[in-house]
């Protein structure tokens, strides 16, 4: 096993690549009663077009299939539902689907190995029937309806529509009531057999473990599968760099308009971690709690709390999002753009150093919770990142670099706004 240690935050990571191609990551934490395990496959909502490694067949699947599969994995041939079995053991179990991965997880204080038996059993043994697939459509349709009533989700989906003409990230994770109608058991098996191969999966554990022991326990529970070649994924042609449209709005019953201001990045191959750190510093400097801009907008009653910031990136997309609620979204956008222009002329070095300290504290605080740690290592893994790098590379981000990133991303021509207005 490979050992990586972070001396700054006093944590260790053990990594092992198994013979079947699966990666196991172990982060031991001695002072905790809890044990957390998360098993993820590199299959998310954007993976809707691919070539089967065995037959070379090119497949296009309906939107929402990764998420549908996640729901159906719990079903067992015995008629039991694995989620029920796990809950009955007193462990907190869940699963979720994102743009690029699907994960199955649980957190236990007792009965950890019994629960691990169940988790590793149900993820490796799917049981789909025409009947149980049909039944799930009603439940997922209700989930889609719930998101339809969620202003935050509408805001986000419209923002993606502004940023890209064609990009797989625009696909709604749950799909639509219409698209999931086309899903049947054969399709689910096809996706399962392709993407749930160990070579496409990573398992992360965090808690009071002896690394060698837990690794053996995991190996003991793995079913042997023949090796599989690489899955070729096809994404829409990477389009020109222009945004799709600068503005979109929707009406919903909310107390105050919600806004999302986005900037589309170029998506270049570079040091992602370093850029991410710089981006967190810049966003906080622009409109964070101690920024001049936030204070001004707060005093004018235009912002009640600092906007939230997101920087999302993967191979096929890169964007920044600034989200909040305000009675005057246009003014917020104007002010943010003006602030960006001002910073392009010069940044206050003291302000920069102060926010840099804050960002360090944020990174350290993420190591408070074993579930945050495990989820962070898993999702970073699918982006090709080792999470410790944020702490390790922190010091390489200097004043000059931050200015360079600011110039590159915050371009008015690449700026969009999505608004949900009060009906």
């Amino acid at each position, binding site marked *: 096993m490979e050992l990586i240690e972070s001396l700054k935050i006093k944590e260790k990571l053990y990594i092992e690549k198994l013979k079947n191609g699966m990666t196991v990551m172990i982060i031991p934490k001695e002072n905790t009663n809890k044990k957390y395990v998360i098993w993820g496959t590199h299959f998310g909502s954007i993976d809707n077009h691919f070539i089967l490694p065995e037959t070379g067949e090119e497949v296009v699947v309906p939107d929402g299939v990764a998420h549908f599969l996640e729901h159906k994995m719990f079903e067992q041939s015995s008629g039991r539902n694995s989620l*029920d079995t796990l809950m009955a053991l007193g462990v907190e179990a869940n699963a979720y689907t994102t743009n690029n991965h699907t994960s199955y997880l649980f957190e236990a204080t007792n009965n950890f190995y019994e629960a691990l038996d169940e988790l590793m059993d149900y993820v490796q043994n799917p049981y789909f029937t025409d009947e149980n697939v049909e039944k799930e459509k009603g439940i997922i349709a*209700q989930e889609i*309806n*719930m998101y*339809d009533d969620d202003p935050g989700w509408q805001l986000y989906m419209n923002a993606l529509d502004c940023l890209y003409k064609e990009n797989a990230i625009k696909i709604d994770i749950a799909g639509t009531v219409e698209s999931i109608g086309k899903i049947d058991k054969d399709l689910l098996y096809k996706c399962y057999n392709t993407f749930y191969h160990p070579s496409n999966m990573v398992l992360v554990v965090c808690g009071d473990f002896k690394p060698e022991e837990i690794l053996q326990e995991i190996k003991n529970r793995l079913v042997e599968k023949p090796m599989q070649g690489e899955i070729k994924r096809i994404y829409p042609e990477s389009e020109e760099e222009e945004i799709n449209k600068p503005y979109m709005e929707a009406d919903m*019953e909310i107390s105050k308009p919600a806004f999302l201001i986005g900037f589309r990045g170029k998506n270049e191959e570079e040091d992602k971690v370093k850029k991410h750190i710089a981006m967190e510093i810049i966003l906080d400097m622009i409109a964070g709690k101690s920024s001049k801009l936030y*204070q001004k907008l707060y005093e004018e009653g235009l912002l009640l709390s600092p906007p939230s910031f997101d920087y999302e990136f993967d191979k096929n997309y890169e964007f920044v999002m600034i989200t909040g609620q305000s009675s005057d979204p246009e003014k917020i956008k104007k002010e943010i753009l003006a602030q960006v222009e001002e910073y392009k002329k010069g940044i206050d070095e003291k302000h920069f150093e102060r926010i840099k300290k804050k960002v360090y504290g944020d990174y350290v*605080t993420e190591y408070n919770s074993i579930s945050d740690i495990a989820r962070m290592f898993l999702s970073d893994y699918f982006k090709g990142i080792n999470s410790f790098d944020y702490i390790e590379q922190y010091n390489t981000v200097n004043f000059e670099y931050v200015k360079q990133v600011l110039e590159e991303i915050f371009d008015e021509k690449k700026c969009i706004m999505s608004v949900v207005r009060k009906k």
Partner: protein
Amino acid sequence: MNNETVEIKKGIKLHQIQTNKFKTNLLAVFLSLPLTKETVTKNALIAAVLRRGTAKMHSQEMISQNLEEMYGATFDCGIEKTGDNHTIKFYLEAINDQFLPEKEDLLRRGMDLLLDIIFNPYIEKEMFKEEYVEGEKQNLKQIIEGKIDSKDRYAIERCVEEMYKDKPYGLYKFGYIEDIEKITSKELYDYYKTMIQECKIDIFVSGDIKENITQDIEKNENIQKLIERELKLLKDEDNTEVLDVKKVTESMQVTQGKLVLGLQINGVEKEESYVGTIYNTILGVGANSKLFQNVREKESLAYTCGSNYIKRKQLILVRAGIEIKNEEKALEIIQKQLDDMKNGDFSEEDIGNSKNLILSTIDNITEEQDTEISYYFGQELSNNFISVEEYRSKIQDITKEQVQKIASKVKVDTIYFLRD
């Protein structure tokens, strides 16, 4: 126990929780006072005004800069209903010195700042700065108006409001728009001065802190200014007998209907509230619960369906997000689950599963700093001190007969439905 409590002055307690599980120290100060229509809005406003400035740092900007300098220490405040009382909560979280690139005393710096924010506010002309109060009045208005933004929460809030009409627990924790306008800066400051000398004060310090910090707190100038106090907290009112089920339907632009049932448990004896926890878990917590199994899994009527138990009020809230046309059907199935519980139509396995779930919640108390603080604070308020081990064994001893007995005391009080 790793929680040491000392009474610094009558009505003011310090609780120090030693734990080595975290990278941070968490400091919390809770002010508790009776929940009344006259004070609820003022309390919410005070929490907001206090974060605007201290006698030493006159603006929010200065406070924020100071926190950023402390490696991004975070300050937070909130307001909560604790049964028939109201608690204003202030938190400050800062990295433990062991994980800093250089030595600093963030613990003491943090404590001084937190106490300054609460007890040493920025004052102009013998009152809170008017501009701050006016600004926060507008903000509070927006928060109250924002109640409708999350339809799930709104429906729950409305059900409670209808169920406890004209009673303290029916009040909205952020107060009322019509009361905001009337509040002047002078009046608010006068109220604040009385309030901080009358409320119950609990200070919590959680983290890997080797030394005893009681003396530091006692010597703090803000703590010295506080006087001893007789506590006036309200004892939670008992539920009254349900005569008719109250039915409320409201319409709004929603795709999904939100159904909430308010159930009350009458005549609960002290030890029975542990049984109530099991009853509620079998009924509506997690994937094995009757509600989840029947409303979602068997009938595909909902994506979410479950229940919450508010021990202090002996209240259970059942909630389901459903298609609007399925209201009757969903109600029928929910009622069936309540009847099944009453008729003892649940197994030993159900009880065992629920116990497992509750025990793991208990084992998790010490795994999050704010959860552990809330646990001790809950005991402090109810004056019922049991260790985590005792709590575990009380849960383990509960029998089916006890659960069925509680089930017979559960009555539907209010049915609230939010639709299009």
